[in-house]
């Protein structure tokens, strides 16, 4: 127990020393960025007080960040600025002379209903606002998905299984098109809920699983490269901007 404590003190001492040195040599901004980066990476070793510090700071700062963005970016111009433009004239002069939009009372009303949650007696009324939100989501998404994903994907699968170009029959494309056709069909068969995976249907579903597994493997392998470049960016920051070790 005491050795653990001692190690803790030594680490803290090193961190403080590095911090002071770095502020003197490199300035506050880079030092804060570098130390926070190291604190986050320390999580890879194990959970520790430095990660906890970075994590708690991140949570607090980010929550306030989005609250401020929401207030100045949405609430002020889109609610107050539309409900009664002169009110925001001192902040956003461009909106001052716009006509008021009385319909904006609706979101104001719903917003206030939502806040009634804080009261234990009238809390149930807040569900009206939530029902509006859920209804909006359902209505908007239904048509959106039908339009873009559903119909567009079907029509782009309608490809000729027998492909021929200017140079006559094209074997490569014929094979590729057939694989796409069979892949989509068997993938769809796999997703059937109300049919048992037996017989011909079962063969289709098993082919579907194979196609899905190829897809997942390919997407995974493909993303590795992009993920590594993120790390390279951070390491460049640490070793170049902070330590100046890269020539």
């Amino acid at each position: 127990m005491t050795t653990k404590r001692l190690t803790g003190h030594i680490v803290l001492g090193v961190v403080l020393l590095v911090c002071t040195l770095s502020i003197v040599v490199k300035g506050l901004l880079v030092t804060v960025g570098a130390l926070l980066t190291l604190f986050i990476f320390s999580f890879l070793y194990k959970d520790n007080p430095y990660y906890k510090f970075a994590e708690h700071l991140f949570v607090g700062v980010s929550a306030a960040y989005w609250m401020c963005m929401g207030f100045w970016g949405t609430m002020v111009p889109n609610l107050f600025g539309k409900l009664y433009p002169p009110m925001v004239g001192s902040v956003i002069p461009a909106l001052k002379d716009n006509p008021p939009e009385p319909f904006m009372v609706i979101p104001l009303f719903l917003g206030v209903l939502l806040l009634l949650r804080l009261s234990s007696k009238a809390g149930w009324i807040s569900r009206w606002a939530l029902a509006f939100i859920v209804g909006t989501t359902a209505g908007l998404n239904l048509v959106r998905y039908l339009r873009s994903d559903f119909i567009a994907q079907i029509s782009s699968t309608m490809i000729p299984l027998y492909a021929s170009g200017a140079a006559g029959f094209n074997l490569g494309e014929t094979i590729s098109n057939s694989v796409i056709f069979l892949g989509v069909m068997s993938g769809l068969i796999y997703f059937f809920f109300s049919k048992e995976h037996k017989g011909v249907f079962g063969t289709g579903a098993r082919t579907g699983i194979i196609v899905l597994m190829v897809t997942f493997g390919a997407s995974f392998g493909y993303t590795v490269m992009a993920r590594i470049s993120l790390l390279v960016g951070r390491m460049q920051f640490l070793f170049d901007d902070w330590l100046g070790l890269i020539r």
Partner: protein
Amino acid sequence: MRHLLRLFLILLLAFVVDGQSVYSQESDPVTSTADSVATEPVTPPPASAFGLAGEDMPNDNGHKLRVKWQYPAEAVGDITGFEIWRATSPTGEFRMLGQAPNDYFEYLDIGNKETPAPDFMANNSDFFYKVVAIGKNGLRTESEPGGPFRTYGQWFHRGKTPVLVGVVLFGCFTFYFIRAAKKGKELYVRPLAGIEAVDEAIGRATEMGKPTLYILGIGTASEIATIASFAILGRVAKKIAEYQTQLIVPCYDAIVMSIAQDVVRSSYLQAGRPDQYSDDMVYFVTNAQFAYVAGVNGIMMRQRPATNFYLGYFAAESLILAETGNSIGAIQIAGTDQITQIPFFVVACDYTLIGEELYAASAYLGRDPLLLGSLKAEDWGKGIVMALIVVGVVATIFGWDGFRELIRVNL
């Protein structure tokens, strides 16, 4: 001779362009301005645009006009471009709207939809346009005003007919199968491994005396995947209440938190243990993607849940969560409709609900015949998709592209 040719072109245009929108050109637009070409031989002003026509944009709510004009091909090289002007009467005050390059012969006038704005464009009223040719020598030639043109709002978007057919068809299927289910018709659904594992996973947490972590993802309530996750949370929370283990639901969005609190509270009520619910189970972390991940990682490391659910909308954080969860030895059940993230869950979690299965999960867990009926409707939808694809492929083989056009959506 040149004048005669232009006159001929204008007449031709009046026949070609849709009759309703073009009341144009009773008078010859090529007048004095064009004549001046002859009188000033040194730096002549550019030729005038002619044949102004305007048409309402289809499938919109009005306030937009497409203005087209013509220009003598041999004179295009003399000008830098055009200016487009609009007024409410041929003799009224014209406003400059914008410019077009010298080889553009049309301009989409997007008027303001609100009344007091200066470039407001009312529906069902007359507008007149002028096109000014700007010569390379700096001289300008105005065309005769063209008009009146009108803009209208439409009551049905024709390009979306296939979507409407889809909505009606799918709505009918759903109605039919829900009705059939109400009458007590037995519906078979094949087992889903991820769903079968839910009971086992919660049971394990109970045995180990550890909490269950439920992550609704980083979607807001505007994602349908989040709504699907609420439905699953309701069933999961009920089981947890029955088993009397601990539930943790850290939320990314405040509205999601509010709904999740209601869902969990009523699940505990249904399970007959309202006293065990507290608002501390469902709480807000932050709505910044990676700050949320940092927070949830912390929760996993310190509270050591035995079972993790990741159901809803996920982005790049999926693998960070799943790998941290794996390192503490939790059983993990995931599901998302984000295609790019499914592979990470498949690789790092014990069970993954792939895409559509996420939406079916609440029906599976609830075993409510009405919900199962809607799954049957989905299967019929898939059947129709497959039939359409087969017909479409056959059609392309025989070179009949018309079939593909039938289901095209023109926005």
